[in-house]
């Protein structure tokens, strides 16, 4: 959690210009390690991009890391039209599950973590430890029990079956509590009370802003977790119209033996499906930098 220690009000601000001088050797080594890792992470994406510009024949026969013929837009057009435009629907579903789920999860986790950090009540540590325990339970292990529960209330194969389990984030609670206790000064809350603001209003207008870097982190983590959550939709959903994009692409992938042209669609579809994630990261990461509440009580 380096971003936490950096941004928490407890630590002194880092002076940007004056760092210890590093030797050329160690800097070179660091660059090399980072370079290798960058390559390691980017090559698959590059491959995916190249593959999605090729038609089916070229995919196998031409250099996998360089362009053959520009079929990219034709491929995208085919993909968007296949099966009555079901792919667009899947992308929409994923955005709905992940966007809405992450938003609600962030609000709940923020409130919960804030309450645990700033209020004293009996059993506070017990609640917190139970929530912490939740971090350790893998989501996969919960999918089947959740399915049985949702079956009893007839909610399987509905939008809610994927959304409801996604709006809890034990890790988010943990992060919010740690962050709130470090970055939301008690004096500020007191000041709010003296001015007559209700606790809820104090939370939404003051504390939440101070906690913004943590909340953005929770949101991004949860967004990615829901976007990539595969097992829950697999267990819960039966209707194609409800699938998120990951599960839809997987379904296509299992049908490759029967409909070979799906291979192209799976590749192009996978490539397009990472675009929203990249966009979310690029748009939200600036909040990590300017969300600091430092100086508010000086």
């Amino acid at each position: 959690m380096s971003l936490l220690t950096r941004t928490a009000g407890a630590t002194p601000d880092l002076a940007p210009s004056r760092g210890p001088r590093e030797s050329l050797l160690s800097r070179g080594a660091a660059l090399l390690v980072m370079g290798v890792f960058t390559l390691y992470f980017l090559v698959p994406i590059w491959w995916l991009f190249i593959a999605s510009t090729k038609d089916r024949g070229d995919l196998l026969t031409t250099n996998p890391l360089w362009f053959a013929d520009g079929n990219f837009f034709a491929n995208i057009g085919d993909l968007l039209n296949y099966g009555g435009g079901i792919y667009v629907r899947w992308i929409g579903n994923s955005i709905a599950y992940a966007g809405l789920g992450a938003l609600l999860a962030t609000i709940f986790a923020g409130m919960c973590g804030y309450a645990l950090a700033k209020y004293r009540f009996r059993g506070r540590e017990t609640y917190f430890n139970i929530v912490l325990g939740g971090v350790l339970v893998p989501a996969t292990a919960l999918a089947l029990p959740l399915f049985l529960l949702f079956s009893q209330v007839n909610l399987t194969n509905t939008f809610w079956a994927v959304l409801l389990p996604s709006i809890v984030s034990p890790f988010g609670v943990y992060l919010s509590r740690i962050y709130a206790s470090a970055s939301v000064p008690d004096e500020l809350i007191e000041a709010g009370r003296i001015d007559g603001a209700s606790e809820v209003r104090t939370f939404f207008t003051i504390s939440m802003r101070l906690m913004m870097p943590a909340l953005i982190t929770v949101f991004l983590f949860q967004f990615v977790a829901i976007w990539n959550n595969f097992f829950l939709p697999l267990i819960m959903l039966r209707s194609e119209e409800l699938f998120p994009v990951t599960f839809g692409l997987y379904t296509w992938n299992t049908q490759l033996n029967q409909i070979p042209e799906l291979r192209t669609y799976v590749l192009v579809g996978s490539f397009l499906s990472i675009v929203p994630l990249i966009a979310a990261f690029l748009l939200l990461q600036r909040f990590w930098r300017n969300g600091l509440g430092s100086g508010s009580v000086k």
Partner: protein
Amino acid sequence: MQHKKRAVVTGVALLSALALAGCSGGSGGDGGSTADAASCAPSDGKVTLDFTSWIPGIEDVVAMWNEENPDIQVNVQTGPNGNGGTYKSFFSQLAAGNAPDLGQIEYDALASFRVQDGLEDLSACEDVVAAEKEFIPWTWGQVTLGSDGVYGIPQDSGPMALFYRSDLFEQNGIAVPTTWDEYKEAAKAIRAKGGYITNFSTADINQFAGFVWQANGHWFSNDGKEWTVDLTGDESTKVAEYWQELLDEDLVSTYPAWTEEWNNAYNSGEVWSWNSAVWGANSISSGAPDTAGLWSVAPSPQWEAGGKSAGNWGGSSIAVFKGTDHLYEAAKFALWLNTSDEALTALNESANIYPATTAGLELPSLQKGVDFYGGQKIYDVFAEAASQVNPDFVWGPTMTQTYADVSDGFQKAVTGSGTLLDALKSAQESTISTLKSQSIPVAE
């Protein structure tokens, strides 16, 4: 802070309310599904059936049915293929009591649903019993599971034959092998030219099972009381030792099946033949597009010269799940889907389904020459193979585990530790212990 405490109390109250709602929902659901399962009588009024399948284009075929049968509407749901997740869903839905009325189940998975008591016995329906004669006899054997019941309607089959590069065989003066001995000789000749006769897949254990099936071997049997597991019977051992020799002498390649690498081995002409099922025709044409027109199909090599025996790889059925309220309608739909000319033609067009009925093998689309195979009428070869499949081969109730264990052992064998036979031996033991752990009676 009085109001904090109240919030907690409200939360607890909410939770218990949810729990209560859950319970009452459950008892209501159970009450609905206790209809008499054994009777096969038509329901009154309009009926809606849920049907889960992963066959491409199944929606269009079902739409044809829905148009003709306003009183029996079928609601189709698609998903990944069986082992890709749909079987898992079926089992959880059965546990929760909300399984669909009908589902796609491959032959090798039917027994696992049967031992969990997840399937309706269709022999209660006269139409189903009467339809037996329409099907290729061995496919019917796959759905009766060696009992008097009928646990599904056969949909397609995967009779096996030999796909080979006729151009390469011809240019190099190598005769197309008709026996496994000749196959091995051909393999040596091809290896001398720098190629491989085929690729041995450690992932497709059902292909290997197809070889054992062809050799008249049996992996499982069930006398109605208990299961017998025999992965290491004489025929199975013979097949395993045969392929072990090919592996030892480096006569076959061992690329992971269904990968780009594997496609490429075929596309580049490094690998010359593939013992595969009828549906493999499409896999080659999509995986090795540069070799169009160069392939042919011949009957599988035999263990004895002049023998006439074929293996089977794949094939599936449409089963009716326990808990359906509309057995009669479900059976009627399943029969239409798998016997009517219109449905079989549509399924063949959209998904290359190779029918399980004798009449289905005469579909016009199966009588044509196929350009990818140099215009050869390849389906004639498969139709003949379909009539040569041993009807007595039975799948076990824990095939997922058996496949996985054999596959693990095969993987070790191709990397040089242990043999294929060792893999079968250890899978034999693990299968018996898995059966025992699921309280399925098994003979030692």
